[in-house]
Structures are given as structure tokens and as C-alpha cells.
């Protein structure tokens, strides 16, 4: 998929809104408001993208080659653009998901090794 091209995986962790903007496009191209709704749904209501944040993220992701403009249509007299994930964007999203899974595994593994009593134990205030 990425043959012949340099690895464009991010070297720094993605910010959460960026992650969910990319994740919302996994099932296919969406327009601005649909991305906001999908990101909110996927994050269980935790990530509620503001319009300004969404378009700043889309501008950056488009310039980085992670997102591309798929279609334009006129709805109620206004232009509506749909955006889709590129191959690089999908690879970056997978890399980020893997990084977070590895980070999570570190904690769950050491918590399991320490036994059930250590996790969630109440700490007495000093």
C-alpha cells in the first residue's frame, strides 16, 4: 500500500481530536457536520469537535496528505465538501492506535503482575 514512499507515520503522539477526525473517516468519506457527529459517537460523547477545531484539523491533515477532498455538492445554497482518508492517513491512524495499545498493554501487564490488590487500592492520605 505504501510501497516506494517514505514512512509518514507521526513521530509525536496525535492529539485526541486529530485521532478521532481520522477515525471517523475509516468507514468512508464524510462532510464536516457528519465528522463532528461520528467523532462524538465513536468517543462515547467525550470528543465534541467545535467547527473551528474541525476545519483547522482538516486543513493540517490535508496538507500532511492524511485526508483528501472527495466530493463537493451544493446543499441549501451552500457548498458542502466531503473528506476521505488517504492511504497515508490510514497508516498513520493504525500506527497511532498501535502505539496507544502498546502503551496501554504496559500498564495492564504490570498491573496484572502486581496482583489485583494493587490496582485500584485506596491510598491513605499522608
Amino acid at each position: 500500500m505504501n510501497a516506494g514512499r517514505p514512512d509518514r507515520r507521526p513521530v509525536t503522539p496525535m492529539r485526541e481530536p486529530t485521532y478521532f477526525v481520522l477515525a471517523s473517516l475509516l468507514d468512508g468519506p464524510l462532510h464536516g457536520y457528519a465528522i463532528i457527529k461520528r467523532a462524538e459517537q465513536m468517543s462515547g460523547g467525550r470528543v465534541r469537535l467545535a467547527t473551528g477545531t474541525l476545519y483547522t484539523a482538516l486543513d493540517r491533515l490535508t496538507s500532511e496528505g492524511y485526508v483528501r477532498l472527495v466530493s463537493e455538492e451544493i446543499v441549501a445554497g451552500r457548498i458542502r465538501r466531503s473528506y476521505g482518508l488517504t492511504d497515508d492517513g490510514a497508516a498513520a491512524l493504525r500506527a497511532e492506535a498501535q502505539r496507544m495499545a502498546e502503551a496501554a498493554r504496559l500498564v495492564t501487564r504490570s498491573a496484572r503482575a502486581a496482583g489485583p490488590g494493587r490496582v485500584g487500592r485506596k491510598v491513605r492520605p499522608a
Partner: protein
Amino acid sequence: MTRLERHSRLLLHVYPKQYRAERAEEMLGTLLEATPEERNWPRARDARALLAGGLRARAALNRRLPLRANVRTAVFVGLAAFLGFSAVARLSNLYANAGVIPGGWTRLPSSVGWTPILGPLLTLVVVLVAWFSRRRIAVLAAALPAAAAFLIPLTASCSVRLAGHCYGYAQFGQPVRGIGFYESVIQLSCMTCLVTLAGSGEPRRSGWLVPLGLVLLSPALLELGGGVAEVTAVLVLAVAAVSIAWIVVDARPMIAVCVFVLADWLGGGGNLLTLISSPAVTVVLLPGLGAALALAIWRLRYQSARTPRLRA
């Protein structure tokens, strides 16, 4: 158009014009869909995000040009502001003091008595041509008569009174405050720099005209408003304060302010700095200006396009 749409459109003006032309309608559609219909204004977090996004988009405009081009633009604006400010100050002064004969001033020969009005008027023409024309030759053509209008009274007054400052101008036979020797040298030097910088850098954006207009208006207020020196000082200082705060988005206005203050100080502080002149101000002025310039250029480095460096 609903009130929500009207207010949303107003908020979108935070974004630069080119960005709005491409994106405003799409963003507006998304914003209206995401906002409950009964609201008159977008939600606070939407407004905050639009403000932050708009400022980021404005900062991104500088990134299309390298540091050198951005510095050239900033210096050009500072010089244009200084020359325009000085010209308006002199014209206002001539108007306000018409008919008054200050003691000890030398009367110019009547043959060159018209030059004090012509000098500032031609300077304003130079500033306008330099701002709007993309051709350096046009700016040079405008600058030559303006330079002559400075040199003629300077030579004439020096020939009349060799010692001290070369004051001595006449407006229709009446001596009025004119321009000193050092101020003339600085004016001519600034005009030369303006001609050199004209036609380079980025196109002159209309956004510069608001602070520039306020700065040019201030000396007219001082001279013609009757004892409103504080208003003038507040106006100029407000422009300077906003320029300093704007460094987060764009460091060029701060560089322009530094160039303006430096030129005004070198020219004898005849205009702005007389309002705040004191030994303490002079002592801290140069180091302060140097520090402000260094800070602004350091910040502008990160706001400008990066130029690839050649390896030896």
C-alpha cells in the same frame, strides 16, 4: 438570514479574506447544523475555536514568505508610517500656526516660501505611490520632487543661518515652524529606504491600513483638536500595544513600530516622543528598542517559511 447566521458570519471575519473566500460558506453550513436553531449566537466553545482557528490561519499567511521578505514588509510599513506621520504633523502644524510669528525664527526668501507646504504634501504622495504601486520606478519618480522640496529650504535656511538648527520657513511670507537639519537628513534617508523597499515583499494588505490610518490621524488631532495631546499619545500607544500583543500571530507590526519609533527619535523626536520625552525615556529607549526588535525577529523566524540551507 437568521440572527444566528448573521452572528456566525461576523465571527468568521476572524479568518483572513482569502481563507473566507474558499471556506466560509462550508464552515457556516457546518456551524449552523451543529448549533441549536433557537440560539442567536454560536456556542461559547465554537466561538473560541473560531477565534483560535482564525488567528492560526492569519499566522499561516506569513509562512508562504521567507523571513527576509517578511522583515522587508515590516520595515516598509514602519517607514511609510513615519514619513506619513511626519508629513501630516508638519501640515497640521503649518495650518494651526498660520499667521503666528515665533520669536527668533528666520524668514526664508519669498522665492522658496512655498516649499514647507510642498515638502510634506509630496512626501504623502511618495507614501501613497510606494504603497499602491508595484513599480519601483514610479516610486522613484514621486520621490525625486519630494527630496528636492526638502533640499531647497534646507539649503536656503542654512545659507541664511549657519549656526545651530537650520530652522526658518515661511508660509506666504510668515515664518512658521519648519523642519530641522537632522530631521531633514532622516526624512531623506527614510525616503531612500522606502524607494529601495518598494515593490518587494508581499502585496500590501488592506489590514495594515487601519493602524496606519490611526497613526496618521493622531498628529492632526494633536494640532487641530486643541490640547488633545493625551488623546494622540493614547492613540499611538494603543496601536503600539496591539502590535506588541499581535506578536503571537504576526511579529511584523512590532518590527514596524520599532522602525517608526527609531526614525522618530533619530529625527529629533519632533513628533511623538516630545509627548513622553524625559532623560529616563531616552536612556531606556535604545536598549528597549533593540530588545523589542530582537524578540520580534526571533518570533518572525518561526512565523515565516523556512528556506533550505545550502551545505558547504
